[in-house]
């Protein structure tokens, strides 16, 4: 798993609530059996018109958001379908960090599996970030996970909360499955206690 330690990048703002995963990656792109290459389809129906041309009004098509790697959005981001493709698309497009008031639980978990840091901030602070971006098109943030701080290139400093049990594996970029497999004895003991036949593992 890709670790997240710190990241400096351009901020893009999508000031909408309830951005669901059907919008982040529409269903027609879920048929692929690969894990890569989803960035080109990110927000597809919002980004492109029927002819495949950019919709100029969509936030990520605007020049000041080109090359952004930190996405600031409204509340309940990533709601709806469990599709991890949504995070794959965001990451493949170049986003390393999302900042929103809240997330759906599944989307939030999926971020951690892909080296994307989802930060929760209160509404006032989110609006503060949105205002700064409005006033400064090239507004950048530096996000540091270990110290749980966000620093703006204009000197703005924000601290954020994150559950230490989620933070640590992301910092270390550990392979989750490998970590769990170290508990093999515990899993086997559980299975035996619940009268399950032993598993012959390679």
């Amino acid at each position: 798993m890709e670790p997240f330690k710190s990241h400096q990048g351009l901020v893009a703002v999508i000031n909408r609530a309830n951005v669901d995963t059907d919008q982040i990656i529409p269903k027609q792109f879920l048929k692929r059996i690969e894990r890569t290459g989803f960035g080109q389809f990110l927000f597809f129906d919002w980004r492109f018109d029927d002819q495949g041309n950019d919709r100029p009004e969509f936030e990520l098509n605007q020049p000041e958001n080109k090359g952004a790697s930190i996405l600031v959005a409204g509340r309940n981001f990533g709601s709806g379908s469990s599709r991890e493709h949504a995070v794959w698309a965001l990451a493949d497009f170049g986003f390393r960090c999302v900042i929103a008031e809240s997330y759906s639980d599944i989307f939030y978990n999926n971020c951690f599996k892909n080296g994307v840091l989802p930060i929760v901030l209160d509404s006032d602070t989110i609006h503060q970030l949105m205002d700064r971006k409005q006033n400064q098109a090239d507004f950048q943030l530096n996000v540091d996970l270990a110290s749980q701080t966000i620093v703006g290139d204009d000197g703005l400093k924000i601290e954020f909360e994150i559950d230490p049990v989620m933070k640590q594996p992301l910092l270390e970029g550990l392979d989750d499955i490998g970590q769990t497999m170290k508990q093999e004895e515990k899993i086997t003991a559980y299975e035996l206690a619940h009268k399950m036949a032993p598993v012959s593992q390679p």
Partner: protein
Amino acid sequence: MISQAPQTMFQKIWDQHLVHKEPGRQALIYIDLHLVHEVTSPQAFEGLRLANRSVRRPEFTVATPDHNVPTTDRLLPIADPISRQQVETLRENCKEFGIKLYDLDSINQGIVHVIGPELGLTQPGMTIVCGDSHTSTHGAFGAFAFGIGTSEVEHVLATQTLPQTQPKTFEIRVDGELLPGVTSKDLILYIIGQISTSGGSGHVVEYSGQAIRNLTMEQRMTICNMSIEAGARAGLIAPDEITFEYLRGRAHVPQDFEAAIEKWRQLPTDEGAVFDKQITFHANNIAPQITWGTNPGQVTAVDACVPNPSDFSEEHEQQSAAAALEYMGLQPGTPMTEIMVDRVFIGSCTNSRIEDLRLAASLVNGKQVHERVNAMVVPGSGVIKKQAEEEGLDVIFKEAGFDWREAGCSMCLGMNPDQLASGERCASTSNRNFEGRQGKGSRTHLVSPSMAAAAAIAGHFVDIRNLPSEKS
């Protein structure tokens, strides 16, 4: 003897499945049943192969193709080559890893959340996961059932466990009785409208109260199914005699069924147990519901009007409402019953079970689908389709002008050819009215099966409480 503190049902299930807990790490919980479908699993199997890992408990893993499958002739190959590849990939993965697959030629094929309960795989007290958010459906049996991402699918395949942070608990009690014409679909839409699409976030919701206890298993599944639309991690309903009778005799229930029942009786929340959050509703305040917007919380009563964005107090709600009304092509103040529909879809893991089909058929019987409307019924599984045909429901639908299809997700998300054209308006018994959900530019109104059936006949929404047959 010191008696133990009263516990919630969720806490009991959690404790029973705890494999390991150490400071600074998420808890490791055991997974009893893992359901798999074609869309969210290929990358997980590929991950196993790359790391040279096997499936730890293939016997606790069950797969079926549902999202991509055509609902027309099953004997023909799937026309879309990428859909076909995904279904074939599932087939090959199941073969390679020794997983039971209910394939397209099986009567047991169907929407994964429909076939789990139907086969008796879903049982009280279990932990159940699937790479699909509507796994919450299975909570109707008193199982902790939740949707996961593909990385987690891989994790469960490899280890039969999952690291999890313990969610909080939220009791939603519904007192009283639902009025005639009001279904469990209306109840859950109403609840989501009240607590919003993020109201359950971080919580496992337990539904309780008289209105819930009165529901059949299929109606309870509709409630738990849409817990995810309220943002909840999972939904739960305590098992009772209705649950046990539903399960009795099903293919995969424990052999010593009476002993299992005794165990299941211990599950319900203890008297005096405390939830992190609690809210009570009254069933008799609830009318049939229709969504008017682009998320399931944007919902109102059938006898109300399309709201005005300025009716909402918070700025983000006003913005969302304005954008939704524009997308939906609706004017504030329009009575909901004046909204015309082009399409009707009866199906999905929310409302495609036999009782849903019976209910819809009862409103359709002897009538004709409105000439402007294109209507279809997609049963949730091959078994439901067969049973409906034995009861003659297919004839009722077909004579009225409905399409009668093979089982699958179909127009709930339109990954197969069943889609709305841009701008088409649909009365749908599914669970999501997101922009483009049923096809690019599609306009979805979520309703109960009876409301959908009535709209198919009238060509617009109707208050089914005013139909002659509903008056008693």
